[in-house]
């Protein structure tokens, strides 16, 4: 959470000659991060980010306490001025005459309250308004402003009831039942989820949604005479649950949900009483009710010098460690090289282990004072071995042949999703509600978006598609897809043929019907009998689209290509032109010719003109030169087989 603090307010608690910029710089290096300093006429405002674990820092006093530990490390003399509340005139007692509370101490670890009579509601003084407003809190009236002021100054939320609205001067602090209704002082009415902390008065009415927002029924207004000042420690889990469920994210709730210090309650109520006397003319009761069955017992954490030095990576004298920790109000007792640390109450929530103590030592020592060195030691030798290099090579090849890589969003609208696509519970919108099971719609969209470009282009993407599996995470199938705009089918297919040839994967193409492709304009790409991808003309468009399963390509592509002896005997090459009947699949003609004889080492289509197809045939025996008679024999075989199987005739 971010807090804003006026420099002059900070100096109520912090005695230092350091300028705001200096305070900000060193706080950021060793403690909470000062994001910005806003310059005012005669003052400055610090904008400070307090991390969720350090709720003790989320106040003016909390920041002063940190600064008093940090600044001396940079040679700046600094003192923390303690909270000065004259406590001798008040008693903390278990019972009082003006209130009969029943408290569930699981929900409220410390319950204090005091009655303040004859309060005069008015505006708070200018200096207080200025401090509140610089922190982003609007001044309302002196009673409410005092509560907010104490919360910002000390980090302890404070509440005030109109005492005369509490029926029977009775309070029951309890867990809510599901469906109970409470109206908060902002006028909103809530039906409670159950398990929320509520306060019921003597008439059985809910008068407070404790720790989150006061109840409308007991709210202080301009006619209020007597105020019940109310300072508590609540169960953070219960507060968070209610605050999240009702979406009531008040400052008080965001503080309470992180677990406040029970020991902070006492100075907070005393400071508040003092302000009530000064600013409202109210007369406080001498007895403050205090229900606190389990007072803070000092938490102890142990840590060894060896551990500190190993994790820090440097040696550090014991007395320095003691000094750093003492400055943060930890007590230290060394026994040999073992240190016993007493944790102050305000740090009890975030300090659990020796690692936590280490962090305190390390940051006050200063991370900037540590050297920098890459670790020595063994290099791991057991990679899980995904094919990152292979994947990058695929991309490089496609880019080399003119493809442009795109990244499109994996989240797609319903019309792009497959039937069983996974659906998000909380999408940003219907445009990105499903996890895609194909890259095709995204690439078509990308191609359409570039329709204004007059030149032809092709776009490719390599990304996971997410195939659902029952009672398990989906299969994340890495897919390589490309879309061609302005290219012929043969040009697009040529890229696939070049790619698989470079990869050493023998492919065949089998005409099929497939979803998303124009009727009869699609083929499976197969290796042996395994389907590894598909290609075709996208439905209702001229785009050619193909996709591959990358894992299959990686598996089928040989890792090592063996050397083959270069034949001493040259191949004989000749072109034969056939007239083929309409609707002949040329791929099958080539396959047929190729399979006739081992000595036909290669067949390529070199030219197409109307129904005339020119094939280039390589006749080759690696062990000898073929005689003209032998070639003649093979040629005859080719001619007859093309004639018999396809009805093709040689064009003379």
């Amino acid at each position: 959470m971010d807090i804003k603090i006026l420099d002059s307010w900070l100096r109520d608690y912090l005695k230092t000659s350091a300028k705001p910029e200096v305070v900000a710089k060193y706080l950021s290096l060793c403690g909470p991060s000062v994001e910005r300093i806003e310059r005012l006429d005669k003052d400055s405002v610090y904008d400070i980010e307090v991390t969720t674990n350090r709720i003790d820092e989320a106040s003016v006093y909390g920041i002063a306490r940190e600064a008093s530990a940090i600044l001396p490390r940079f040679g700046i003399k600094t003192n923390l001025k303690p909270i000065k509340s004259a406590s001798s005139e008040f008693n903390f007692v278990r019972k009082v005459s003006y209130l009969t509370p029943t408290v569930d101490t699981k929900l409220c670890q410390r319950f204090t309250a005091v009655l303040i009579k004859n309060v005069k509601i008015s505006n708070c003084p200018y200096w207080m308004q200025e401090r509140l407003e610089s922190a982003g809190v609007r001044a309302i009236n002196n009673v409410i402003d005092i509560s907010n002021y104490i919360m910002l100054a000390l980090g302890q939320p404070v509440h005030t009831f109109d005492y005369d609205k509490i029926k029977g001067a009775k309070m029951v602090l309890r867990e809510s039942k599901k469906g109970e209704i409470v109206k908060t002082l902002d006028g909103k009415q809530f039906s409670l989820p159950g398990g929320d902390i509520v306060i019921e008065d003597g008439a059985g009415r809910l008068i407070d949604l404790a720790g989150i927002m006061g109840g409308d029924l007991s709210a202080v207004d301009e006619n209020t005479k007597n105020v019940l000042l109310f300072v508590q420690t609540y169960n953070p889990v219960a507060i968070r649950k209610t605050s999240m469920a009702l979406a009531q994210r008040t400052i008080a709730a965001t503080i309470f949900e992180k677990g406040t210090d029970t020991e902070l309650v006492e100075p907070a109520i005393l400071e508040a009483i003092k302000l009530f006397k000064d600013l409202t003319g109210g007369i406080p009761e001498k007895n403050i009710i205090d229900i606190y069955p389990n007072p803070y017992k000092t938490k102890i954490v142990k840590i060894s010098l060896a551990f500190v030095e190993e994790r820090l990576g440097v040696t550090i004298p014991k007395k320095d460690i003691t000094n750093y920790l003492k400055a943060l109000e930890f007590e230290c007792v060394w026994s040999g090289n073992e240190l016993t640390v007493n944790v102050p109450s305000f740090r009890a929530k975030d300090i659990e282990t020796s690692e936590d103590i280490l962090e305190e030592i390390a940051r006050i020592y200063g991370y900037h004072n540590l050297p920098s060195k890459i670790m020595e030691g063994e290099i791991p030798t057991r990679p899980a071995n995904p094919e990152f290099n292979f994947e990058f090579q695929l991309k490089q090849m496609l880019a080399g042949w003119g493809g442009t890589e795109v990244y499109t969003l994996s989240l797609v609208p319903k019309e792009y999703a497959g039937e069983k696509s996974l659906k998000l519970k909380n999408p940003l919108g219907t445009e990105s509600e499903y996890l895609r099971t194909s890259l095709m719609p995204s690439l078509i969209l990308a191609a359409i978006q570039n329709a204004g470009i007059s030149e032809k282009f092709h776009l490719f993407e390599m990304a996971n598609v997410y195939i659902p599996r029952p009672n398990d995470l989906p299969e994340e199938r890495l897919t390589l897809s490309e879309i061609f705009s302005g290219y012929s089918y043969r040009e697009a297919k040529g890229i696939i043929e070049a790619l698989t040839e470079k990869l050493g994967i023998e492919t065949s193409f089998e005409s099929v019907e497939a979803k998303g492709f124009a009727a009869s304009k699609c083929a499976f790409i197969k290796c042996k009998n395994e389907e590894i991808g598909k290609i075709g003309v996208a439905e209702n468009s001229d785009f050619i689209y193909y996709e591959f399963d990358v894992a299959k390509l990686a598996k089928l592509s040989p890792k090592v290509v063996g050397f083959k002896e270069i034949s001493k005997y040259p191949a004989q090459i000749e072109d034969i032109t056939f007239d083929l009947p309409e609707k002949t699949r040329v791929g099958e003609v080539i396959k047929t010719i190729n399979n006739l004889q081992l000595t036909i080492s290669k067949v390529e289509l070199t030219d197409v003109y109307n129904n005339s197809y020119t094939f280039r045939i390589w006749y080759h025996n690696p062990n000898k030169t073929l005689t003209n008679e032998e070639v003649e024999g093979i040629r005859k075989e080719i001619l007859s087989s093309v004639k018999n199987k396809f009805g093709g005739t040689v064009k003379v």
Partner: protein
Amino acid sequence: MNIKNQALAQIMAAGDATELEQIRIDYLGRNGKLTDLIKKIKDAPEEERKQIGLTINEVKKSVEDLIANQKNNFRESVRVWFDPTIPGIKPKIGHIHLITKTIEEISQIFGRIGFERERYPEVEWDWFAFTSLNMPEGHPARDEWETFFIDAPESPKYGKILLTPQTSSGQVREMLRVKVPPIRMINIAKCYRRQSDISHTPMFHQFEGLVIDKGISIVNLKGTLDYFAKSFFGVERKTRLRPYHFQFTEPSFEVDITCGVCGGKGCKVCKAGWLELGGAGMVHPNVLKAGKIDPKKYSGFAFGWGVERVLMMKNGINIPDLRMIYSTDLRYLSQF
């Protein structure tokens, strides 16, 4: 003199460059006619030697000049008009995406110091993304990740299915895979968060570093991150650590790098000369335990940074809006 006239006549009669070359060899070659004469000078009477020498040299020079001249004539006679400035016929130029290039660069930088690149699920169990990282259900720290959840039944063991909001979800998976350290992992993957503005896209990439071994210290974390920053951004750049808080590391840091625009002096782009790179920290003992690694024997560090973020912070890229990185507009894509 005879030889001279004979040679000149032959040169003039030569039909092409090959013939000329033959004539040159016949007269001026190692055993050429003129060369032979030069060799014979020493046999002539002493008083004539000087004169003979001068004469032969003169002849030699005339022959050489004429050959050169004639050669040039031949070249001129075959000259045709040719324009070497005419534009070439380019192959279609393709483009690898900036994100891919950045991921490759990051992998290589870490590969050089022994990191293994891994890949872990993008659609992940709550347990790996949060619970095992010391963030039990309902923990306020979870608020920082605007997480997408999948509408699917929960697993009794691993909880909800979600889109991983950070690559840290690979930490415990890597520990469970390797079992016995050392671990030096770099996990680069897509991540998803419910946010979209000038500096956020709902889908983005992170790279997660994880090192676990005996005696790993903050000094090693600094060393590794410094090395990365200098390799990726330039040797003149410096990094610093500031205290921060993450549930899955203790201590935790925010890592800053000196601003590349002002060189660390302070300017509009940076905060007093520094830019935030991302988070890092020493792996929390509870996370090691979740990965079945003994925190008493081993320690480690981790960091998870945005690929887009480091890319945008590179000098000279100047992309004003992070969302533009994912544009499919060819006019943008073909710039890189």
